[in-house]
Structures are given as structure tokens and as C-alpha cells.
């Protein structure tokens, strides 16, 4: 897992949100600095599209500002900000499904190189060898095919290190529901490679 919540970080988030309540958008800077990598990581894995990722992450922070009065410290900053991000990701996915002609991927493919690849791993090389690349590509494809709830749950659990109650808040289900979603998602992802074998 790439990220873990730290108590000192959580305290900083709450302090920054307090500052934001005054209405000064400059108070967003430390939050952006701290949360941009995590949001980019989650949103990119969800959308697998560079352009959408940049748009959504920017919009997340704009909404953090506009909805600052709705923030409740007792629930923590991470569930709140990831809820915003997950909702925007879902909306973008719906939008893309309805407007396939406006897909960023389609335009990027014309140039012969995918934007997602550039963001996905700018230092591609030894880590993604030719033999593992195929399985990884299939994994990404299957992640894209997962339903919103399962995708959100598995990405937040595996990469962002969020606890089950936090994911339950974001997805809008029970803790047991989160476990079920992660189980189903992993079961689906176990089929990587099997499609070609079959």
C-alpha cells in the first residue's frame, strides 16, 4: 500500500480546514500539497485517463472549498475528500459512457502514444518487464470494468490504506458491505490471464 494515514497529518488537515472556514482560499495550499499525490493516485487508477485525472483532482479541491461548511471533523478528512473524488470519478465515467465521441483516450491514440502511459509510469523500464506487462495491462483493463462500488473499495483499500469504516462511509454501505465488495472485486481480478487461457 502506498499511503497510510498518520495522526499528525490528520491534525494538520483539521487545522487547515479550520483556517479554510474563514473563507480564504489560500488556506487550501497546504491541503493541496498534502493530498494531491493521494488523489492523483486514486483518481488515475479509477479513470486511467490523464486529462480526466487532472480535471477531477482540481475539481475536488474546488469543492472542498465550496463545501467547507459541510465538513465534519469527527468523520475525518480522508473519507470526506475521497467521497468527493469518488463521486466525481463516477460522474465522469457516466459522462464518458454517454459521450464516447468526447473520450480523451480516442484523441490521444491518434498521436500514437497514450497519455495514460505517460502518467502511469514515467519511469517505465525494469519494473515493468515485457513478460509482466501483459498481465498488468489486463489487470488495469479488468479494474476499469469493475462496478463503481467495487472499484472504489478495492482501490481505497489496497492503495490508499483506508480502513473499512472509512470506505463504508465513502461507498455508502456497511462495513460488511465493503468486505463483500472487496472480496468480489478480488475474485474478479483473479481471472486475469484466464480469459486468454480459455
Amino acid at each position, binding site marked *: 500500500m502506498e499511503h497510510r494515514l498518520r495522526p499528525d497529518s490528520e491534525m494538520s488537515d483539521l487545522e487547515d480546514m479550520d483556517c479554510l472556514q474563514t473563507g480564504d482560499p489560500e488556506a487550501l495550499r497546504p491541503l493541496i500539497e498534502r493530498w494531491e499525490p493521494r488523489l492523483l493516485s486514486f483518481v488515475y487508477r479509477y479513470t486511467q485517463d490523464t486529462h480526466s485525472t487532472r480535471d477531477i483532482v482540481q475539481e475536488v479541491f474546488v469543492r472542498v472549498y465550496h463545501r467547507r461548511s459541510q465538513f465534519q471533523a469527527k468523520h475525518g478528512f480522508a473519507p470526506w475528500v475521497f467521497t468527493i473524488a469518488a463521486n466525481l470519478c463516477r*460522474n465522469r465515467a457516466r459522462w464518458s459512457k454517454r459521450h464516447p465521441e468526447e473520450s480523451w483516450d480516442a484523441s490521444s491514440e491518434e498521436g500514437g502514444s497514450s497519455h495514460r502511459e505517460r502518467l502511469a509510469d514515467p519511469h517505465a523500464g525494469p519494473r515493468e518487464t515485457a513478460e509482466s506487462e501483459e498481465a498488468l495491462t489486463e489487470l488495469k483493463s479488468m479494474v476499469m470494468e469493475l462496478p463503481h462500488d467495487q472499484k472504489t473499495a478495492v482501490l481505497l483499500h489496497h492503495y490508499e490504506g483506508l480502513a473499512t469504516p472509512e470506505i463504508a462511509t465513502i461507498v455508502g454501505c456497511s462495513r460488511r458491505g465493503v468486505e463483500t465488495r472487496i472480496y468480489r472485486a478480488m475474485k474478479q481480478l*483473479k481471472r486475469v490471464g484466464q480469459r486468454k487461457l480459455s
Partner: protein
Amino acid sequence: MSVRSPMSTQPPEDPHNLLEKWEIKPPPDIHLADRVINQIRTSPAASPAEPPLSSWLAWLVKRPVYVGGFAAVFLVTGGLIALMAVLMLRESNPTASPVEYRLVIDPVYRLTQSAELSPPRDLADADAMIEALNWLKKELRLDGDQFSKLVSLHGNFEATFAGQFQDLQASEALMNDFDQLRFQSELIDFIEVYRTLENFKKQRVRASETTADLVHQVSEIVTSEQRGRYLELLGDLSQFRKESTRGAPPAT
């Protein structure tokens, strides 16, 4: 780690291991904070990632027929709801009577009664229809469905009655002018007078037929018992017409 070739017989790799290999190291966007803050300051309510309202409006702009249809439906529905609301508000205290109802549905009677006032004025104002229908509802004990149908039916006739009343008023004014002229001058175009009188008679017949048509349609909506009471309230239609024409000037 072992990765299978398409023809490999090795078991599928653990998805947890594969997820671990999916690394993302996005370069930090050094201008993100500036863009966010700039967006907040320039357009506080902007929401570029989720444009449902704008897309919906764009969809409507591309389909003007739907827009027209929706607008028409909203107008008609809104008008009916407003009329029903006013009727319900006044339902508790109907102030109309058979006279008011006749003024509404009989332009000839309305002309006669209005002309008898000094100065002459239109007795059936904009609220007269509402008052009259509320009175009718109470007298006939109409249920909701019957009342809705009668409101719609009378609404359909309202414009026709108003037009006929105006035509009758204009013809009557013209005849009054001829009367005045007859006392002042011997040079009268009797052919024109004849034409005006004939026209007036035709207008009265048309108006009476329209009234009879409305009465007939009302009778088809209500029950036989209500129909009897309705005709009783109106009086005999032939008498109705006769009374309405009583005030007309004699044909020359």
C-alpha cells in the same frame, strides 16, 4: 514472480501481487494550487467536471420541438391548475345565481341586460365564469370529475361567447347610430340599415345556437337527475331564447 504466456499452464498470479506492481508516480502539478484558487476566485459556482444542467440545456436547444411541446404542456397545465385553485378558493362561498350563469353562457341575454344599465356596461366580467361555475357545482352537486369536465367545456366556449357578445354590441351600436341619424336627417341608406338588421339577427341566432350547443354538451356530462335540475335552473331553452330576444329592436 512468474507471468504466464498465453499457452502457459501455470496457475493465475495472485491479484494482490499484480496490484502491488501497478505503480503510479505522477509528477506533482506545481500549478495546481494556483489553478484551484484562481478558479474559486473567478467562478465560485463553476463545476466543469460535472455539467448535467448545461448538457441538459444543450440537449433541449438541439430539440426545439420538445421545448415547444414542454412549454405548451406547462402552460396548459398551469392554467388549468390556476383556474381550479381559484375555483376551489371560491367554492365555499358561491355568490352567483341563475342570472349570472345565463349572463355567462348567453351573449344575447348578456347584451340585453348590459344595455339596460345606465351607463351600459358588460355584466359578465372576468370572474363571472368562475362564480357561475361554482354556483353550478353547488346546485347540481357535481363530483370532481364532472366539475373538471364542465370547467374545461365552459372554458372552450368562453372565447366564442366573448366574440359573439362583441359582435352583437357592435351591431347594436350601429343601429343606434342609424336611429339617431333618422331624427336628424332624411338621407338614410335604408339598404345599409336593412343589412345591419339582418346581420344582427343572424348574430343573435348564431349566439343562441352556441348557447344551445353548450347546454346540450353539459347535459351529456351530468347524470339524468342533474340534467333535469340543470334545465330547470335554466328554464326552457326556447323561453330562454325568447326572453333573450325581447329587448331587441324591431326589424324595419
